[in-house]
């Protein structure tokens, strides 16, 4: 407890069990009275504890903490650990374990958590004795939050929980084998600046690294000085305000048309804190072959992993961006920037306008997201689940403020949305948290309605129900001869479910009721479920079909 307190932990998402009882017993004192140091949020499933910790971390920039028991408690966290690994989210999972004397005996609720977690975590460690606690906890938080952040798993055998030692605070902020912040190479900086200064058609790709490095201002200064248009990855959406004149939209399979086309035309591509995910690049054999590639990343192993780099600047972008900016000449790429406009207009006319302002027919996801974005004035934190809801939400939401997007990008974890939104309400208590889900993902961690009820966590849940696993349904229609194999959902009565948890609920079927319903939701204190009846075959567009070239992006489906 004292070790957690020393690391500045305020909120713990957890679920007790046999092998973690000594910790929970101590927690009893630390969550009440004059010894109170933490809020403990009792979740309803350990997977949700990790997603809530992720949501907390993503909006606050602090390390999220999950506390669970051994065996199934520990294995249930693995999805969240893998999710945090792929999305570079700093969380620490502390799991109970059987006493070390019982390890390897197939004892009740024993599982080799360190072995299981190693390939999907930044660090996993077993605290075998109480005298290791201060060191291991401090090292865990240092590793989770420093460099490229990520999940750390601490496996905590019961004997070590019970041993009594005098607490001697330790502060780990150096590990000789781990270079959290690589030293900036001035030669790489010079080469990068030279390429940018000579570029006629530069294009920046902005990733979550900018948010993680808290370099939003440095990014703007960099882009503005050299006059470089910038596309953002899904996780990097709020690294640059949506309204910024140099913002040219979202990258990727369902991103905006202009940046995807222009990636194949630019002469210098500047990737900043992003990892060239396959969802961004499409076919890497044809991706941006005409361009010189500059890659700014804190993680050496990302360089040349998916796309070959001409200049790699391996450092925290908070440091590398200003260093490059200092060497840049004031740029003017008006003509190049203007060339994005016809593409943007084309997408606007063909895709965006029909999606956000339809005139007839059932509700569309795009218009729901757009209406919520307008009603919240862009002040809200967007949390999404995974699937069409995520693609529509990330496309049509607005991001004037940093750290405003929380979605499962790398792992694509359905069920992420609801628990992550709970975490976000604790991580950003002053902000409105809206969470978009489909009818599939809403049911994947639906038990967390219990946590929301108990905590009165003010999550504004927008359930976009099309009675389908919509994204898979869309792919079946496009690529699998419309054979809708097990994507039709037989759904429960969500109003009754909301009632069961005493959560205010409203359904919207007619377009004319949408605006008022959203306003009512936002005006209601505490949690709220807004169920929108969505057109069954609403498709996300545009789309680069999987494995295709990035500029083979479709604005319409021809079937």
């Amino acid at each position, binding site marked *: 407890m004292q070790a957690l307190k020393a690391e500045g932990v305020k909120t713990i998402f957890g679920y007790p069990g046999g092998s973690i009882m000594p910790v929970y017993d101590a927690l009893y004192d630390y969550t009440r009275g004059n010894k109170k140091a933490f809020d403990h949020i009792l979740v309803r499933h350990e997977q949700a504890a990790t997603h809530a910790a992720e949501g907390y971390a993503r909006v606050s920039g602090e390390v999220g903490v999950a506390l669970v028991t051994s065996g199934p408690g520990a294995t249930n966290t693995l999805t969240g650990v893998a999710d945090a690994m792929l999305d570079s989210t700093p969380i620490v999972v502390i799991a109970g374990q059987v006493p070390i004397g019982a390890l390897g005996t197939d004892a009740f609720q024993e599982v080799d958590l360190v072995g299981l977690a*190693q390939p999907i975590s930044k660090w996993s460690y077993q605290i075998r004795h109480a005298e290791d606690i201060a060191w291991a906890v401090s090292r865990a938080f240092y590793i989770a939050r420093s460099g490229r952040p990520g999940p750390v798993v601490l496996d905590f055998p019961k004997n070590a929980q019970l041993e009594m030692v005098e607490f001697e605070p330790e502060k780990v902020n150096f590990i000789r*084998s781990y270079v959290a912040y690589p030293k900036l190479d001035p030669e790489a900086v010079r080469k990068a600046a030279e390429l940018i200064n000579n570029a006629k058609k530069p294009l920046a790709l902005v990733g979550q690294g900018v948010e993680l490095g808290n370099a939003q201002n440095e990014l703007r200064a960099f882009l503005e000085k050299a006059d470089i248009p910038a596309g953002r990855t899904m996780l990097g959406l709020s690294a640059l305000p949506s309204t910024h004149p140099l913002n040219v939209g979202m990258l990727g399979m369902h991103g905006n048309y202009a940046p995807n086309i222009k990636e194949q035309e630019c002469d210098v591509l500047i990737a900043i804190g992003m990892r060239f995910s396959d969802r961004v690049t499409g076919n890497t054999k044809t991706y941006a072959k005409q361009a010189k590639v500059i890659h700014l990343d804190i993680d*050496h192993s990302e360089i040349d*992993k998916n796309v070959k780099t001409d200049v790699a600047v391996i450092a925290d972008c908070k440091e590398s961006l200003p260093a490059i900016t200092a060497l840049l000449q004031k740029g003017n790429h008006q003509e190049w920037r203007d060339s994005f406009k016809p593409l943007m207009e084309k997408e606007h006319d063909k895709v965006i306008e029909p999606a956000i302002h339809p005139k007839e027919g059932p509700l569309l996801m795009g218009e729901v997201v757009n209406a919520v974005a307008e009603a919240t004035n862009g002040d809200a934190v967007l949390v999404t689940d995974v699937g069409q809801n995520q693609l529509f939400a990330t496309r049509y939401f607005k991001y004037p403020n940093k750290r405003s997007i929380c979605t499962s990008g790398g792992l694509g974890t359905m069920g992420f949305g609801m628990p992550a939104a709970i975490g976000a309400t604790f991580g950003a208590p002053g902000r409105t948290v809206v969470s978009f889900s489909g009818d599939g993902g809403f049911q994947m961690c639906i038990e967390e309605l219990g946590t929301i009820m108990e905590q009165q966590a003010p999550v504004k849940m927008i359930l976009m129900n099309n009675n389908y696993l919509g994204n898979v349904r869309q792919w079946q229609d496009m690529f699998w001869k419309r054979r809708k194999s097990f994507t039709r959902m037989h759904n429960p009565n969500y109003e009754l479910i909301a009632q069961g948890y005493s959560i205010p609920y409203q359904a919207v079927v007619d377009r004319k009721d949408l605006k008022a319903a959203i306003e009512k939701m936002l005006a209601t204190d505490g949690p709220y479920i807004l169920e929108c009846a969505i057109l069954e075959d609403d498709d996300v567009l545009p789309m680069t079909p999987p494995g295709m070239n990035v500029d083979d992006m479709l604005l319409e489906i021809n079937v």
Partner: protein
Amino acid sequence: MCNDMEEKKLYTLLVYSENIAGILNQITAVFTRRQVNIESLNVSASSIPGVHKYTITAWSDEDQILKITRQIEKKIDVVKANYFTDEQLFIRESGLYKLSTPMVLENPEISRTIRRFQANIIEVNPTYTIVQMHGVTEDIISLFRALDTFGCVLQYTRSGRIAVTRGMQEQVSQFLEERENG
């Protein structure tokens, strides 16, 4: 698919890590994830106190071995990982050959072969004779093939590769020194 077509070479990785349980697992997992077989593996304490050295060989192409190396080096408790081709290293392996003593005595060609390969006889008893040889992979295998033609080999084993670099710089100790001195 396409990668399999590229020319594969035997690469040697030299990995230095802290002496903490579970590191070997983390290192081999990087290979497993890409379904790359480890040809040979040797782990021992290095000349630096508290630091273990892993010598790993695997067939791969350069693109893949580079990614594997960087992903290994990314592990928190791995100090350094580098990959090399054979020309960049001094390489040694050992072979042990357990031969039938009666057959060795019966056929003088066997002793001549052992001498020709500059291998040593390290133990003889009435039942078996132990021969040891240090060298590069091909020589150790060649001796086995030669002895095997006499039908005298009872057991044979070859060690993992150990290697030191030909370069002038001692990267790992330098790196650690720089780290410790900030």
